[in-house]
Structure formats: structure tokens, C-alpha cells
């Protein structure tokens, strides 16, 4: 065995080298015979610094997406992955942990990420701690955490309605379930819990104007709450959600001042959210009579998304039936919500479980396919790239960067 001497020499920069110009592949060395190469006479590669850690812009580009990996095979070790869906290189930007069916939200005004999650002192057992963890968007370092008392944080397959920001991102709404249902209101500026609102028979939230939110209820109604400090006022609608025979999905997307909820059998229910009170509007059909006969229906997990001031996208399957509403879809249908009309369809390469439209003029549609990879489509249906979140990830939920 030969002996080596360690030479720690700082070499001069090789910036002069032309990018992309590849060396001739004549580097195979055998039995100690060093084959000459065009770089033979050049200075050694520059020595690198140890300890470097990457940072991100604190304001993420609109092509970034948060792929929330529930990590079904190790649920207590879930995570949220930041991915540049427009990049063909360096597409994976970083990861934050998100334990035990966590919920996620982002604040554009404070450049913070929020994860409400649950830990046990011994991983799977021991003392339980519910906590809302606050990350800095540039460093992805933890800035703070807010302890959530009472052990009541609702846990479910990951979804958007379990953590929402309202009132210009000043208040966070956390869904609790014990199985009694309530909403904890947290002031994200002072980082204090403001109040807890009992919501018996209701679940999850979606924002209204100002310090107000709405929640769907088991009697088919929608309840609206206005928060004024610790004071809360409530209004309730008539019953309109036919949960038995044509339930609204509890996944929705907003276009302008309207929140759109697809239903199990292929309709969509708009709810006006432009004021402090949710007002159910008239339902319309996502499908033609012929499509209905073929049982084209929404199906998947996050089955709906939208361009904030544009079109609505719904993940659709045909031959749907009772019990197939989480099967996933084969196409994404695009709707003009003003005309209440389908204006396009994207056939998915590997099916879809969840969909999310990125924001901005150059946006695109991101799909969690049925093999648990991501696929990025242009809005006119061209597959642009495939991105793996990680080898064993189950990224059921996608959040477009604000």
C-alpha cells in the first residue's frame, strides 16, 4: 500500500474554465499508471469551506410549492418539502419536519412558516405535546414555538382546513377534535392564544373577510364566526349540504370572493366569502347529462384548486360510484366559474390524487400522481416535468407558495 501525504494547498480559481466543456474521458487509471489529461498541468481544484449551509429567499418565487408528506409509513415523522416546480435542476429547496398528521400554513407578510404538530416524549408513547412551530422562510430555522394546551389538536389525513390564517395573516385558526370539535384562535403577532370557539357538529375552517371565518356543519349548514378580541359572534345558514346523497367535499378553492366546493356526484357549491358571513350560492353541475351518465365525478384527496382570480380545476374520474370519492382521478377539468362551463381538460399521465395550481401569470398545475410522485403540467395540459418528493414519501397535500 502506498503512502500519501496530505497537501492542503489553496489553489487558484478555475473560473476561466468554460462551463459545459467536458474533459475527454481518458481518466481511467490502472495499476498506478496515470493517463495524461488536458487538465494535467492545471492547478488543483480549489479547496472548499466546511460548514456551509444554504439559505433561501425570504420571499419565495410563485413557482415554489410545499409538498406535505404525511409519511404514511412513519406518520410521526412527516415533513414538508419546498420544491421549485419550474426548475429542471436544483428543484428541491429544503425540508421542515411536520410530525404526526401536522397542519401547515405560510405567512407572506412575516416570511414565516407554521406547522401545528404533535410529539410524544418517547416517540410513540410517553408525554404528549401539541405545538405550533414557527420557521423562518429564508433559513428554515425554528424561530419560536407556541405550546397548544389541552391535547386537543385535531389529527386527520392532512388537509388545508385544519390550519388557516385570517385577518391579513394576523390570526391563525386551529381545528381541535377530542372528539368534541372546536377552533383555537391564535394571535400570530403576539403569539398568544386568543380564544377557543366551540364548534359542535362542525369541522375545519375557511376564511371570510377580516377577522371572520366559516365552518361546515353536520346538519348541512355553514356557520360564520366574527372574532372581536375574545368576543365571538355567530350566524348560521339554512341547511344546503346534502351529506347523505351528494356531500360537499371539505376541500375547496377560492376564486375572487367565492369558495368552491365540489360534491361527490359531480356538482359544485359556491359559497360567497367576500363579507363576514358565508352565503351559500346556487349549486351548478360540473358535468353534462352525458358525462353524468358515465359517472364522471370528482375523486381524490385535494380534488380542487384554482387560480386566485381565474379558473377552477377539479380532479375527475369516470365510472365513479358510492365509495370511489377518494380513488383519484384520471383527468383535471378546467372550469370558467363565471360561465359555469368546462373550458378544458388535462389527461393525467399517472392519475392524480391531489392537485394544486401555482400562483402568478406563469403558473402551472402540480399533481400528486397515484405513484406518489409530482407531475407539473402547463395549464393547457402539457406535461413539463416529473419530480420525486422522496423515495417513500406520501405527499397527499400540496400548497402553492403565496
Amino acid at each position, binding site marked *: 500500500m502506498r503512502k500519501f501525504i496530505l497537501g492542503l494547498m489553496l489553489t487558484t480559481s478555475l473560473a476561466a474554465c468554460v462551463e459545459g466543456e467536458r474533459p475527454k474521458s481518458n481518466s481511467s487509471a490502472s495499476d498506478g499508471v496515470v493517463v495524461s489529461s488536458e487538465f494535467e498541468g492545471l492547478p488543483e481544484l480549489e479547496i472548499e469551506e466546511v460548514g456551509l449551509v444554504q439559505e433561501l429567499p425570504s420571499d419565495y418565487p410563485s413557482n415554489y410549492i410545499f409538498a406535505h408528506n404525511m409519511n*404514511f409509513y412513519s406518520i*410521526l415523522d412527516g415533513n414538508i418539502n419546498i420544491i421549485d416546480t419550474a426548475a429542471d435542476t436544483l428543484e428541491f429547496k429544503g425540508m421542515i419536519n411536520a410530525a404526526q398528521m401536522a397542519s401547515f400554513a405560510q405567512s407572506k407578510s412575516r416570511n414565516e412558516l407554521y406547522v401545528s404538530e404533535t410529539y410524544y416524549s418517547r416517540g410513540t*408513547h410517553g408525554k404528549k405535546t401539541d405545538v405550533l412551530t414557527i420557521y423562518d422562510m429564508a433559513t428554515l430555522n425554528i424561530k419560536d414555538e407556541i405550546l397548544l394546551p389541552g391535547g386537543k389538536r385535531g389529527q386527520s389525513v392532512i388537509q388545508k382546513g385544519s390550519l388557516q390564517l385570517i385577518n391579513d395573516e394576523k390570526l391563525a385558526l386551529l381545528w381541535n377534535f377530542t372528539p368534541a370539535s372546536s377552533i383555537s384562535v391564535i394571535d400570530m403577532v403576539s403569539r398568544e392564544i386568543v380564544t377557543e370557539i366551540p364548534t359542535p357538529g362542525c*369541522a375545519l375552517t375557511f376564511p371570510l373577510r377580516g377577522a371572520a371565518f366559516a365552518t361546515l356543519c353536520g346538519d348541512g349548514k355553514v356557520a360564520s364566526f366574527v372574532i372581536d378580541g375574545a368576543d365571538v359572534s355567530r350566524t348560521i345558514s339554512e341547511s344546503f349540504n346534502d351529506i347523505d346523497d351528494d356531500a360537499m367535499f371539505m376541500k375547496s378553492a377560492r376564486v375572487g370572493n367565492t369558495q368552491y366546493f365540489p360534491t361527490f356526484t359531480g356538482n359544485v357549491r359556491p359559497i360567497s366569502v367576500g363579507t363576514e358571513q358565508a352565503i351559500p350560492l346556487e349549486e351548478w353541475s360540473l358535468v353534462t347529462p352525458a358525462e353524468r351518465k358515465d359517472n364522471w365525478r370528482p375523486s381524490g384527496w385535494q380534488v380542487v384548486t384554482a387560480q386566485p382570480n381565474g379558473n377552477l380545476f377539479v380532479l375527475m374520474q369516470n365510472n365513479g360510484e358510492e365509495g370511489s370519492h377518494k380513488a383519484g382521478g384520471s383527468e383535471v377539468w378546467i372550469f370558467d366559474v363565471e360561465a359555469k362551463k368546462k373550458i378544458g381538460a388535462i389527461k393525467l399521465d399517472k392519475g392524480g390524487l391531489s392537485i394544486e395550481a401555482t400562483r402568478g401569470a406563469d403558473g402551472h398545475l402540480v399533481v400528486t400522481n397515484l405513484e406518489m410522485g409530482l407531475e407539473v403540467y402547463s395549464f393547457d395540459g402539457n406535461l413539463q416535468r416529473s419530480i420525486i418528493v422522496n423515495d417513500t414519501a406520501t405527499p397527499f397535500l400540496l400548497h402553492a407558495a403565496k
Partner: protein
Amino acid sequence: MKFLDKLTEKTTRKIAHKSSRRGFLTKIGTVVVGTAVVPLLPVYRAHANPASASKYPGVGAQSTGNPQDPGDPTSCDYWRYCAIDGFLCSCCGGSASSCPPGTEMSPITWIGTCQNPADNRNYIISYNDCCGRSSCGRCLCNRNEGDRPMIRPQLNNDINWCLGTESQIYNCSTAVLIGVALDG
């Protein structure tokens, strides 16, 4: 990445179809609130062998030993699983109606109604979760017949029903036969 197999959609859907014209538990759930209101978990997908859609590779077949309770409890298309969501306890050291050693069965649970193809009766199935150990990881199975959104929690399998247990960590799901649904 191929460990989640979309082929099984077909299996699952076939079964779902079998009883989809039957009634669901929409009215019953609230009646059984004593024992009642069930298990966890997400998305319509089972992990079956493409060659034999009802069989998970590397998992030994089982039988109830009772011809009136037909099928393989390690298969996602076993009749009792019409609304289950998660890892089958039968594959995890438990059985269709019992938890693996070292886990705790959730006392709160969600209810499904499944038709037994042998006697054509509709039985009430309580999908109690087993809790306190992390994901078993075998025989992932999701069927949603009668599943309704979370505002009907007693009919929803997306909620983590490891509630009322010492730990909320989810291990696997059972399908306990707790009654008969009579068509009135």
C-alpha cells in the same frame, strides 16, 4: 416509489360495487355512539400484487375457518373491509377483530355496513384502530363505502381515531363485527 400500487383500485372498486346498492350507515352511526365511532386514515388505495389483485406479496394468506365468513382477512377485498382505511391488523400480528400485541384498541370508532357475500346479510362493522406503535406498514388498504366528510365524524375514516387511548400513534385497523343491519 412503486410500493403504492394503483392497480388495486380495480379490486377495491369491484368490491365497493358489490354492496354499493345497499344502504349505508348514514342513519345508524349516531345510534351506536356508545361503542361507536372509528378509525383513521386516508386515501383510496391498496397495496396488492399485480399478479393476484387480492394478495399482498410476502404476506401469508389467512382464512377465518368459517365458510359463512368467506375470504382472506389479509386481503383488501375481504368483505368486512368495505370502509376500512389503513394497515390491516390481520397482517400486523392482530386479526380482523383484535389488535397486535403491545398495542391498545381505540374505544372510539367509526362504523361501516358491509354485505357478507355468503349469507347476503348486511353486518355492522366497527373499524377500531390499534394504537401506541407506529405504522405497521403491511397491507395498506383503503375502501370508502359509506364514508362521508368529517362533519359526520362517525362516518369518516380520515380522522385519526386513536382517541381515548394512551397514545394517539396509529398502528393498524381492525374490522370488528358488532351487529346486523336489518333492512326495514
